[in-house]
């Protein structure tokens, strides 16, 4: 039986705003030196506290929607999603139910288009970790992460293969990074993945889907698709239907295990949060946000390449917003140096967190000057070597270009091994 893979993804991204989603606490859970340092009545869920939404988080989400061709809601609001869990201080999460900020949208891959269902904004939960205290098995809770702004991106079940999944996720991450709204560092929990996977024989959407959680990298995402394809095929071959459930991905053994049966939509009792007035998003506001739409990854690569940087170097620079900032400044200060700077960056020859573009350019200039003064000493040496070997010079000029290497070696030997081979070569060529 041949089956087709049908997969939708649910991606949560922590926005890197300065402050949290509904209060002014610092948004830096991963680097906090101690637990429960960045809390206040609001994110700790104290009696009497009230939420006020972070404007930048809202605009960052709309920005992503614009970059992904979503429709931006004209009216949006926040809703309360109720369930009890120790990491949820209010007993409800402020999220968005039926009027998300962004509707639809898409991202193209070489395997085809992945359509988006929606992008919405909500608050993150606190962090739970297991421990044993006084011989007792306990969960420790840290609210530094509580109420950090979280974007949720939901795709249609358009992902058809593990390769397509990887390309889609990488593309999505690159865009988010290029927009400067999130770091998407999976190790720090800045980007979390979930897959909804089912198989079909004839292309119609089956009546079941398996949710896979605990996926910590794009590779593991792809792996889980492979595993599920195998597992679900075997069940379907037997004439049975895979159980509608939630499974967890285990990276060590590269498989998924059943966690709990996914009931038809837990009763979250959504209702509009009465503490937060609705959002009216008019075209004037959207235009302001649109101005922030920086060039997207492909465009950035094209720009860098046309400035003389190799495509592979450009791709490396694209991954690192600080490198990108560095090269952009070099371009402004001294366009002629962009090519060298770009290659130096990609080859990790620049300590770009410590050195400014100006300082880098200064150092490069004095090196060149040293080169020139070195050259003034070198050139007589070069001429000497050529003068000492007239027959070889004649052979070179007759077409035996390989002899150049001999000349280079000879010159360098005469400098005690100190001369720069490239400079020597150029000087030789100049004199030949």
């Amino acid at each position, binding site marked *: 039986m041949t089956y087709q893979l049908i997969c939708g993804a649910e991606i949560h991204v922590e926005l890197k705003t300065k*402050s949290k989603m509904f209060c002014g606490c610092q948004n830096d859970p991963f680097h906090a030196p101690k637990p429960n340092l960045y809390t206040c009545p609001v994110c700790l869920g104290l009696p009497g506290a009230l939420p006020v939404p972070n404007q930048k988080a809202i605009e960052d989400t709309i920005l992503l929607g614009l970059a992904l061709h979503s429709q931006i809601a004209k009216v949006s609001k926040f809703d309360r999603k109720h369930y009890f869990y120790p990491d949820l201080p209010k007993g409800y999460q402020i999220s968005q139910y039926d009027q998300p900020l962004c509707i639809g949208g898409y991202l193209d891959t070489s395997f085809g288009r992945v359509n988006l269902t929606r992008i919405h904004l909500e608050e993150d939960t606190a962090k739970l970790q297991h421990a044993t205290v006084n011989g007792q098995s306990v969960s420790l809770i840290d609210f530094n992460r509580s109420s950090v702004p979280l974007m949720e991106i939901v795709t249609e079940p358009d992902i058809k293969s593990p390769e397509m999944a990887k390309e889609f996720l990488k593309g999505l991450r690159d865009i988010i990074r290029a927009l400067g709204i999130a770091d998407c560092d999976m190790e720090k929990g800045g980007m979390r993945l979930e897959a909804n996977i089912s198989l079909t024989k004839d292309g119609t959407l089956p009546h079941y889907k398996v949710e896979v959680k605990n996926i910590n990298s794009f590779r593991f995402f792809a792996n889980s698709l492979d595993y599920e394809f195998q597992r679900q095929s075997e069940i379907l071959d037997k004439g049975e239907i895979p159980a509608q459930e939630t499974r967890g991905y285990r990276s060590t053994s590269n498989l998924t295990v059943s966690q709990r049966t996914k009931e038809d939509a837990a009763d979250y009792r959504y209702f509009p949060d009465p503490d937060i007035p609705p959002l009216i998003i008019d075209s004037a506001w959207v235009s302001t946000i649109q101005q922030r739409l920086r060039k997207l990854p492909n465009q950035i690569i094209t720009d860098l390449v046309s400035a003389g940087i190799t495509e592979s170097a450009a791709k490396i620079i694209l991954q690192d917003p600080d490198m990108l900032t560095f090269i952009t400044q070099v371009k402004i200060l001294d366009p002629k140096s962009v090519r060298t700077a770009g290659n130096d960056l990609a080859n990790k020859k620049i300590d770009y967190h410590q050195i400014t573009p100006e300082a880098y350019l200064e150092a490069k200039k004095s090196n060149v000057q040293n080169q020139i003064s070195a050259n003034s000493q070198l050139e007589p040496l070069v001429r000497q070597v050529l003068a000492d070997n007239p027959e070889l010079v004649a052979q070179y000029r007759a077409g035996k270009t390989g002899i150049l290497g001999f000349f280079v070696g000879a010159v360098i030997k005469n400098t005690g091994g100190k001369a720069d081979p490239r400079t020597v070569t150029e000087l030789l060529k100049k004199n030949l």
Partner: protein
Amino acid sequence: MKAKVIITTDQVKHLAKLAALPLSDDRLKKLVGQIETTFEYVQTLEKTDTTTLDETNQVTGLTNVMREDIIDDSRTFTQEQALQNAKHSHNGYFVVPAIFVAEDN
């Protein structure tokens, strides 16, 4: 004519679970009757035609109330303040008995 509202014990048990309310059998029994009374009362709304009406969930008429993305130190608690009312804390964390949770996040 008002229909008699019947709430079953199972329904009440389910609601209690959703609301995380531990209920003794005694309280459960009493609640069934009390909830029924409430629903008979609110059912009077059925008589009123609301088909042409919009919903009002905000009487303020306000929209777009947001805050600037700046850190507000004036409200941030020290770790001690955050923990001051917790029954159980350990090394700066709040503590609860172990929850069995598969390694999410």
